Every structure is written in structure tokens, then in C-alpha cells.
């Protein structure tokens, strides 16, 4: 023991650690956004190096193609906008649940059941009801379906303390199976295993053009939801309850809040908005239903919600960024004959830098040299 002690202390004499990490106090907002911007810039530089070393192509050209892919034409711009809205809408759905620290990773399923409900209305009621009534029925049924999907795990959690992460995840698979069944039920033409475009001639249940733009209604609905959810979470009594429950269930009980009730109520809302996303996806963009209607956006939206720290207004920016990356990646994949992986590397690098920059916003690093100077 003694000899060991001596060797260690002799060896480590005066050797200060190379770098240490210390938590920062709150940083000015401008500076923190500056760091994030720098992270994006840096990620582009690193990506450029990676692109060049893998493909020996001019990185600027590749970036140009990415931009082209997302914003190259009127049509591409609107597709980008449409997909941004659909991702944003799921992010909005997740916001209240996540704010409550209720890990709803079942948005995928909630979107699907909302889509099924919408498709069913279009198929069975498309020729029966007048347009306004059809839309009311579609909206209500898609919301109800999504709300049901969201509220079941919440009910179990509040009654029996089940784990909502696993439960909402498993509800996704149920939704996918139901969708497969419905696709088989409604397939058109028979034997194709696709539902095909619903009501192609009458366009019953399709979103109308607004201001002459096909997807303008999508934008209006989703942006309204974003602002509405922002106000709901920030200024209402419900929003206050959600924050308290999310921070500490004990405090909530102490304050006389019925925690189980808040779980169920909030998941009804979260599920309903996700169901509404399904309605927008079916009625407002694809006009068909398949197991890919949600397309993994239910999971991507989790990243959106976290990166925006559950602020639905910030989510607009993040959704746009992610969709831009997706579109750009597809473009370079097809334009340069690269496969998907090259573009996914770029997406990965950019996200890594953006998320990593949060570390530098919250912590600072003290290097060894600096300590010497201080002495």
C-alpha cells in the first residue's frame, strides 16, 4: 500500500488534467444561436471533406444539388412544404405528451388509424354526403381514432402504472396490422395489394385548392395548430397542469392535481392531433392509404420535438431543416448515382453537429494551459 502510494504520487506530481468540463450559467440567447449557426457551418465543412474523400466530387456541386432537390422548382418547393407540414403536425401532437414526460412513441400508429378513419369515410361516404358534412365526419372520426390510440396507453398507465414507452410502441404494430387488413379490404384494382387513388374522378373528400394552391389548406391547418398548441401549453390551466405533472408527479399530487386524469386528457389531445395528421396525409396529400402513410415520420417527429424543446414554433424551423435534408439527400442519391447511404451520411453529420452544439451551450471546457495562467 505504502510503496504504491509513493509511486502514484511521484508519477502524478504537478500533472493537471488535460481538460475539465464545467457547467455554464445561462448563456445569452444571441450567443447560443450563434453557436448553433457555427455548428451548421462546421458540419457542412466536415461533410464536404467526407463527400470529397468518398466520391471525389465537388462538394459545392453536391450541396447545390441538395438545394435543387428541395427548392429547385415551384412543384418541389410545394412538396417540401407539404412534407414539412406533415412532420410539423406530428411534432405538435407530441409536444403536450413530451412536456408531460409521457414518452409517446406511438405517433406512427396514431397517424395511421387517423388515416384509416379518413380513408374509410372517403370510400364509404364519399358519394353519400355533401362536401362540408363529409369533411366534418372525416375530421371528427380521424381525431377520435387517434385519440383512442393515444388514450389507451394513458389509461393503463394511470390505472396500473404500465410503461407508456413500450405500450405506445406496441400500439404502432397493431395499427400497422389493421392498416394491412384495410388495404386488403379496399384494394383497387383487385389483387394489386394497393388501395390506389381514392375517388379519382369525383375527388370527393380531397382537400380543395386554396388561393389556387393545392397544399395551401395543409399549411393553414398545421400553422394554426402550431400556434394553438403554443398558446395551450403556455397560457392555459391545462398547460400549467401538464408542466407540473411533467416536472414532478409528487408536486402535482401535492397541488391537488389528478395525475391520472391529466395523463388521459393530454394523450387524448396528443392522439387526436396525430390522428388529424393522418387525415391531412390521406385527404390532403396522398389520397390513398398504405402502411407507409406515416412513413416513419412518427419517429422522426420525436427528434423534432426534442430539438425544439417542445416549443411548437421552433418546431417549424426544425421540421423544415429535416425535410430539406431528406429531399436533398434523395436528389443527390438519384442525380449522382450514389446510393442512399452517401446522403444519409451527410444528414447524420449535420444532425450530430447540431445536437452536439447543445453541449457547448451548456458546458465549457477548461484546458490545462488555462489553469497555469490562472496560477
Amino acid at each position, binding site marked *: *500500500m*505504502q510503496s*504504491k*502510494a509513493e509511486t*502514484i*504520487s511521484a508519477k*502524478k*506530481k*504537478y*500533472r*493537471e*488534467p488535460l481538460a*475539465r468540463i*464545467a*457547467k*455554464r*450559467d445561462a448563456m445569452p440567447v444571441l450567443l447560443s444561436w450563434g453557436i448553433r449557426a457555427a455548428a451548421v457551418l462546421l458540419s457542412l465543412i466536415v461533410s464536404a471533406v467526407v463527400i470529397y474523400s468518398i466520391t471525389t466530387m465537388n462538394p459545392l456541386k453536391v450541396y447545390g444539388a441538395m438545394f435543387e432537390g428541395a427548392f429547385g422548382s415551384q412543384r418541389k418547393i410545394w412538396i417540401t412544404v407539404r412534407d414539412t407540414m406533415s412532420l410539423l403536425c406530428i411534432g405538435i401532437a407530441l409536444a403536450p405528451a413530451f412536456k408531460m414526460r409521457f414518452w409517446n412513441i406511438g405517433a406512427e400508429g396514431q397517424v395511421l388509424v387517423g388515416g384509416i378513419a379518413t380513408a374509410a369515410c372517403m370510400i364509404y361516404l364519399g358519394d353519400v354526403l355533401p362536401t362540408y358534412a363529409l369533411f366534418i365526419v372525416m375530421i371528427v372520426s380521424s381525431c377520435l381514432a387517434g385519440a383512442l390510440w393515444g388514450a389507451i396507453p394513458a389509461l393503463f398507465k394511470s390505472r396500473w402504472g404500465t410503461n407508456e414507452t413500450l405500450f405506445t410502441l406496441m400500439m404502432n404494430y397493431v395499427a400497422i396490422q389493421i392498416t394491412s387488413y384495410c388495404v386488403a379490404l379496399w384494394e383497387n384494382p383487385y389483387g394489386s395489394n394497393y388501395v390506389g387513388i381514392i375517388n379519382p374522378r369525383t375527388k370527393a373528400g380531397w382537400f380543395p385548392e386554396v388561393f389556387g394552391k393545392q397544399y395551401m389548406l395543409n399549411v393553414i391547418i398545421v400553422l394554426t395548430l402550431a400556434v394553438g398548441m403554443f398558446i395551450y401549453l403556455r*397560457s*392555459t*390551466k*391545462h*398547460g*400549467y*397542469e401538464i*408542466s*407540473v405533472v411533467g*416536472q*414532478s408527479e*409528487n*408536486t402535482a*399530487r*401535492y*397541488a*391537488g*392535481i*389528478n395525475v391520472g386524469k391529466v395523463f388521459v386528457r393530454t394523450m387524448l389531445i396528443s392522439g387526436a392531433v396525430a390522428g388529424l395528421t393522418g387525415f391531412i396525409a390521406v385527404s390532403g396529400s396522398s389520397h390513398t392509404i398504405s402502411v407507409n402513410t406515416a412513413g416513419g415520420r412518427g419517429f422522426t417527429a420525436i427528434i423534432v420535438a426534442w430539438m425544439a424543446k417542445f416549443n411548437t414554433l421552433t418546431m417549424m424551423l426544425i421540421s423544415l431543416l429535416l425535410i430539406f435534408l431528406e429531399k436533398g439527400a434523395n436528389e443527390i442519391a438519384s442525380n449522382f448515382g450514389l446510393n442512399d447511404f452517401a446522403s444519409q451520411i451527410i444528414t447524420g453529420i449535420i444532425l450530430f453537429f447540431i445536437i452536439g452544439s447543445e453541449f457547448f451551450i451548456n458546458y465549457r471546457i*477548461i484546458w490545462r494551459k488555462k*489553469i497555469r495562467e*490562472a*496560477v
Partner: protein
Amino acid sequence: MEQQTAIRMQNITKNFGQVLANHNVSIDIRKGEILSLLGENGSGKTTLMNMLSGIYYPDAGKIYVNGEAVSIRSPEDAFACGIGMIHQHFKLIDVFTAAENVVLGLHGKDANLKNAVSRIRDICEKYGFEMDPSQKVYNMSVSQKQTLEIIKVLYRGADILILDEPTAVLTPQETEHLFQVIRNMKKAGKAVVIITHKLHEVLSVSDRVAILRRGEYIDTVATADATVQSLAEMMVGKKITLNIERPPVQNPKKCIEVKGLTVESQDGVRLLDDISFTANSGEILGIAGISGCGQKELLESIAGLQKVSAGTSILYTAPDTEVSVELVGKNPKQIREMGISLSFVPEDRLGMGLVGAMGMTDNMMLKNYRRGRTPFAERGEPRKLAEKIREELEVATPGINVPVRRLSGGNVQKVLVGREIAAAPTVLMTAYAVRGLDIHTSYTIYHLLNEQKKAGVAVIYVGEDLDVLLELCDRILVLCAGHVNGILDGASATKEEIGMLMTHLQKEGSSDAK
């Protein structure tokens, strides 16, 4: 034995963000002495010692062990230098035996369990510990766990022992035993540092006292030359009176009457067993007991947060109308809706009484955010209240919307107590209301409680410092393992009497004096 310097800390500085935890602190620790490190909460005592035990690394300054400059970068380095620290929160594995915990993390010969058992026995004999090496940790009392932590450090060959607030969790009897052990270690030539803020303990055990105030080193004095008053003044930096007043009880009326309160845990263990007592308005009822023997359940039962067994009755009598209502089976919201203003300052301030991530304003509305008929939460009144509390109780915060978890412990408690008193309660329950607070804030809290008492509120004060309980409370209920082990008169009871009742369960019906 002429005293040699074991450790010299020179010009140590440590920052956490903007907070200067230690600034240019220099102290000596000598072999064969007991040094008290005295200071209020947040004065940097623990931070300073954590730099010796390898938890933190100083931003500036040098540490010498036995005259040699060293850099201590990890707890292993600290052990290699012969430094061992016993932290406030024990770091033991519950399902392991004492011996297994001792050898955990060691290698070679030191890790041999058979060897260890006999060496542990030797250590126990040498210093006067009582410890069965094969006892599992989950069967140990708090004081046994502490003993085990000390043995762990001695087993690793530490010559310099640092104990962080070792008496915070002990009864008076256990404290005396610990001090005896520490004196034995001193005789064996070890250097012992005790981090504390309890003045009478400093005087009874240590040879020298080093005082820190707000991260600055103030002075080191020989204990023989110090008094409670002189130490307190050095610690706080100004003259203070250390008396707690106890205004006479005026016009006491039955307010809360608890009968046959029984609470069982989910496993069917009785946490509270047939508790009966009365809390009167205009009186402070103290509740003493070893931590975790039913205090939490008792207060939460009254507050409507705890499920109680059948046969329990908690009767509330309104002071003005003298109408009695039963509180059992009501939740906090229902109790409030019956027009009863029952305030509760729970032990877990940020985990139950407040929302740490929210600012003062949002915390003010925690219990009455439902006010108003619109679906929108009204923040005007809470904001005014927050401003008022910030001003009247001198809450140090950068702004009323800064998350309260960023405030110091004392300021967090001021926010919580301020809100609970602002609700104009008829019953005020506090659990460990001054734990972790500096002297000044503690006396502010005592004063506020006395103000409430004078205003005719029934105050229930769960405390751990027996000296304070004896000075402040009119009656003291002693809990022992979920039983009422006696209710004593605050003015005539003694510390030893309460200490006895805390640890030794009385037989049925022997002490129900009042």
C-alpha cells in the same frame, strides 16, 4: 507528540460557473488532531474537502501531503495519498455484507474476503467500533452504515479522515459514541476533519476550528479559546442573537384531532401504528424522531396525500365556527374546496412543494391556479405575490421567473414557506423546515412560525435538531418506529429524555402524559 502537518492546502480557488465556491483558501491539517471545518451551508466546506478526496479539481492553488506537492485527480489518487472521506450520503451496496462492501473495488491481497474479515475485526477492536463483517447493509441502521463507511476508509489505509456532517443523521447517544471513536483515531495519530455547522459539537470534539464564510477563509482558532457566540459571529460575519423566543400560548383551541392513525406500506408493513394526538391553534407542536420513522406519512396523512387504514380519524375543527369535519378520504383539492386552508411545507422542497424548473411566479399559483372562470391561467396575482415575497423575505434571485432550482437552498425554502404562509392558513405543517439553511434564514423561519402561532395558527413542526425543538415548541411528540412514544412539555423536557424516547420503544400505556 509534536504535531506535524499532514496536509497543507494553499491558495485554493474553485468556481462553478459564476459561483465562487472557494476563493484563495489556505488551511493546514495536522496529524493527531481533530479539526472542525465550520461554515454555513454554501460556504464551501464540502467543496474544499472534495478537492482533497478527488471529486473536484481546484482551478488554482496547490495541495501538499506530508510536505510534497500532489495532484489529486480521482478518489484513487486520494487513497494513494492516505486521504479518505466519508460523505453525507453513504455509498454502500445494500445487498452486500459489510466485508463485501469494504473490499469492493480493491485488488489482490486487499480484496481477499477472509483476510478482510480478520482485518476488519482488528480495526473494530483498535478504535472501538461494533460491527459484524457478515451483516448485510440493508439490515443496518443509519449509524451502523456510517460506521461501515469509516471502516472502509480505514481499511484502505487512510491516515487523514474527512467526515462530512457526520452527526446530521444521528441521535444524541449515537453522536457521543461517534465522537469517542474519533478521539480514539486521534490518539492513534490520524488527522480527522469534521465538516459541520453545529457549534456545540465543534466545541465538544475538536482541537482547532477553521472557519469559512461564502467561500473565503476567515480564520483558524483553538477550540479552547472559542465560545458558541464567538464562532457564530465569525461564521455569519456579524453579531447575532442565538435565542429562539417561545411566546406564551394564548387561547389554545382544538384544531386537528388525530385518532388511531394507521398507515401501511404496500408490503403491509405498518409505518404508523395507532397514532393519536391533538394539535391546538396558537401552539407549536414539535415532532421528534429518528429520520424516516413515520414523520413523512404522518404529515401527508393530514394533508390528504397518504392512504390511511380503516379506523383512522382526522378531525379538523374550524377556529371561528367550531364546526368539525373529517379529513380522512379527502384529497388536497377537496380539502381546499371545503374552505380549509391547510398549509404544508414538505421535506422534499423541489420534488413536492415546488416545481424546480418553474420560476417564482408559476410556483405561487401551484395551489390556486384554478382561480377564474376562463380556461386561461391567471398570472397577474401570482406575479404580485412573488414580488411581495421576494421583497419581504429578501429572496435572492436574479428574477421572479428564474427557475427556483437555480436558487440556493435557503432561498428555495423562503419561496415555499412564503407561499404557504401567504395562503392565510389555519393549520401550518412543516417538515425539516430549516434543514440546510444558514443561521440567519433559520432564525427568519423560526420567527415566521412564531408569528403564525401568535396569529392563532396550529403549527406542527417536524424537526431534527433537538436543541431547536426544545427552544421553539410548546409540546413535543416523540415518534419511534411509527408509534407515539410520548408527548412532552417543551419547556421542561430534556434532550436526553427525548433521545431515549426516540430509540427505545415504551411499553403500552406507559407514557401518555398529555
